[in-house]
């Protein structure tokens, strides 16, 4: 039977919404941390010459 266009689909419970939010925040923090880490490690590995490299 075809799905009616106005059916709400999967409705998350409050608990599922809370856990999804915790996963999203954790993932955002991990990705942000990874970006920061790669940036800092790049500066450390390139050393003080990071801003005066020949083009």
């Amino acid at each position: 039977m075809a799905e009616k266009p106005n059916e709400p689909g999967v409705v998350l419970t409050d608990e599922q919404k809370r856990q999804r939010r915790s996963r999203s925040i954790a993932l955002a923090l991990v990705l942000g941390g990874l970006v920061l880490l790669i940036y800092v490690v790049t500066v450390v590995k390139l050393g003080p010459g990071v801003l005066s490299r020949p083009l």
Partner: protein
Amino acid sequence: MSLLSEGAGLARPLRDEDARAEPSLAGAGDYLALMKPRVMSLVVFTALTGMLIAPGHLHPVLGFTALLCIAVGAGAAGALNMWYDADIDAVMSRTVTRPVPSGRVAPGEALAFGMTLAVGSVVMLGLMINVLAAGLLAFTIVFYVAVYTMWLKRWTPQNIVIGGAAGAFPPMIGWAATTNAIGIESVLLFLIIFFWTPPHFWALSLLRTEEYARAGVPMLPVVAGPEETRRQILIYSLVLAPVGASPWLFGYAGLAFGLSAIVGGALMIALSWQLLRTPSDHAARRLFGFSILYLFALFAVLLAEWGLGGLFARAFA
């Protein structure tokens, strides 16, 4: 001795189709639990020790990065272990609440999570630190997951003896991160953890014999009986005591380490002997608890000697 036939008694492996079709209830904490944070903390501590006492200098940011990669690699191995062992975990009281057997994380999610972290940690360590350390980390993860979890654990009572090598690699990885080499000192640290693992785990398994038997895991007390297990614990403790003191005997550690290793090793032997002569859950629990303290103390003293040595070197420079 193979216990594959007993393996028939294992609970049916959990599959993705068993997982709920509804949206996940797993929170960030469940994914953290997949990484076995308590095991990770010991891995980080021993890797940090190997990294710091190694000759040479590693920039603090790079040192932190190396430790992070090692910790995440260990977490990946833990997640892959929980993915594969969900059937065993489901029938043991100690592990039944883990994310996969409890149904909060689907097996496929645990597998994908573990593989992503494993590949990511190894690639990051290789790109940011050195290829040797990354290779050792990759070998450790493969050894723990493929050799220990998938093969030895369900096949032989020597599972934790050989599989213990996986837990012994972190100080070597830390050492390799600093020096880009494998030194004899790091091999000695490897041997300490390697010979520490059997008395530590067998003391625990003596307390869980019935559960291991029900799960079909051929731990030594299940296959050879408690008496033989207690005898093997004493034998490994007798080997561990001199191995524990070897960094001092070879001149790589100071007197404080030597004294700690001798006293700690003697106590390991005494507690193992007591467990053999007067078997009880209390004696097994005491040996298990002391073994954790013993390993922690040895690596802590090594770190302290390194720290104080650095202070003296700077003071008299």
